[in-house]
């Protein structure tokens, strides 16, 4: 990892950061562009972390918005009600989300494929409804007037850290253990991989960064409401991952950037937006099921659950 290529990428991204920061300071980039950049950054954190669970470990989870909301609410409470500093609040949000990942992960990870998807989906909705019914965090109207502490610098460096951490996990023996779970759970276990442990690791780390994205969101858009973390949000993140390519961090980053831009620029045509979006997805699934740069097909993840569990070889000759 710490080779020439790594430093080249690091320098390139720092140059990119510097140029954008320069443009923002000089007022050459208006708020619309900054909003878009920050949104892309937050979405990248969400997608890359979900990719650890779905793409690398092969666990079909669609409750990411739930973890995100925990990060958002907890960090907002920290700054708004307890006047904590921004980094401490963000960290608290991350840890809370990671704990939730642990609590949810342990019982649900016995499930496979579609069953796990439904369980995580349900979990996301439960979290949302808890916020909705908690007066302390404003119920349905949510929390207002959260300080705007997120900026381009915070977003950029946290995206960088997220990608680094996920890549460092994936490109290690622990990452290979996770991928082996995705490839063949029974063989992974027979080779001495503690399958449950690695599923939980993936869940906890994924939830941690979803919490981070939630904290950044809360402190950028002033306001958080339970409805912004509904099923559609989880689904949106899943779409970034599937379109970019399950199990490919580069692909997921690329997919997230493209889709976020598309979404932003189509905002003026709300009727057309969902149609175009859906068409893109349908065509990707037909012509490129492995995603833009992905290594493995989305179809496989769904099929893996349930029936084919102990029959049919995974090695299609």
């Amino acid at each position, binding site marked *: 990892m710490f080779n020439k290529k790594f430093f080249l990428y690091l320098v390139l991204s720092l140059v990119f950061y510097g140029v954008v920061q320069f443009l923002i300071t000089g007022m050459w980039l208006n708020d619309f562009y900054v909003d878009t950049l920050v949104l892309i950054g937050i979405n990248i954190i969400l997608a890359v972390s979900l990719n650890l669970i779905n793409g690398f470990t092969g666990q079909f989870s669609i409750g990411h918005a739930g973890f995100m909301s925990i990060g958002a609410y907890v960090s907002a409470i920290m700054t708004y009600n307890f006047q904590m500093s921004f980094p401490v609040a963000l960290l608290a949000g991350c840890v809370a989300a990671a704990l939730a990942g642990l609590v949810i992960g342990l019982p649900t990870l016995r499930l496979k494929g579609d069953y796990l998807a439904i369980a995580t989906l349900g979990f996301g909705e439960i979290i949302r409804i808890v916020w909705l019914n908690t007066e302390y965090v404003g119920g349905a109207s949510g929390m207002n007037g959260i300080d705007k502490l997120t900026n381009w610098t915070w977003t950029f460096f946290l995206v960088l850290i997220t990608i680094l951490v996920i890549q460092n996990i994936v490109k290690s*023996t622990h990452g290979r253990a996770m991928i082996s779970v995705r490839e063949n759970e029974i063989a992974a276990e027979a080779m*001495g991989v*503690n399958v449950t442990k690695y599923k939980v690791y993936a869940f906890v780390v994924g939830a941690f960064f979803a919490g981070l994205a939630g904290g950044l969101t809360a402190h950028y858009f002033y306001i958080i409401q339970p409805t912004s973390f509904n099923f559609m949000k989880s689904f949106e993140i899943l779409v970034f991952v599937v379109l970019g390519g399950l199990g490919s961090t580069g692909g997921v980053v690329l997919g997230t950037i493209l889709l976020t831009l598309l979404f932003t620029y189509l905002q003026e045509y709300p009727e057309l937006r969902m149609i175009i979006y859906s068409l893109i997805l349908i065509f990707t699934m037909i012509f490129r099921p492995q995603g833009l740069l992905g290594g493995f097909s989305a179809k496989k993840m769904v099929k893996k659950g349930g029936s084919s569990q102990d029959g049919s070889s*995974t090695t299609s000759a």
Partner: protein
Amino acid sequence: MAAQQLLLNVDNVSRVFGGLKAVSDVNMQIQDGELVGLIGPNGAGKTTLFNLLTGVYEPSGGKIHLSGESVGGLRPYQITKRGAARTFQNIRLFGDMTVLENVMVAYHMHARHSLFTSIFRLPGHFKGEAEMREKAVEFLKIFNLDGKKDEIAKNLPYGEQRRLEIARALAARPKLLLLDEPAAGMNPQETVDLMNLIRWIRDEFKITILLIEHDMGLVMGVCERIYVLDHGQIIASGTPEEIRTNPHVIEAYLGQEV
């Protein structure tokens, strides 16, 4: 060979699925360094017995000891850590990983660097990974697969996939290697090569091998001792000569074929 020691002791093990007794009261003793075959007609319960030995199923009754330690009811990864690795009847490679990575996964349980060390890329990570890679490459050389180390496992020809699966199981450094129909789908020449490979593995790695096989030629040729399973019960055990002439065995097999 060192003094004979009991490596695997299967004591009255049974497994019930609903009303069906797939394996009933099986007793099996395997000494250190033996090469033992397990045969039986289709549906006799051979693979079920394997799954019991490797923790995929929990025994409904009886005890299993590996090197004197009770392993009944442990999870498969725990049993692998205690020294029993296996291959599968239908090959189960990590299809989308490279040949090298497949073998490296087997070294995972011996890894000393933690997730934390890897996330922060502490020195332990680089040392551990380099060591693992080196060992895995060495290992692939033994199996003549080092030239294909960067190929995706599912793209290998069938015979090489089988070999890779055996290599991967051996990389876990087991005391007991369990091979589930290693010759399935192989032609006669490949089967002969495989027989030599199995014998060579036993001598080279000084391990004990238990193999399930349908191919009588292979079993009789390579195994020193054979257990015959029929309807979930051991109906005979002994040297290949004894098995060949055992009336129960002939009956079990003829009963199936005629």
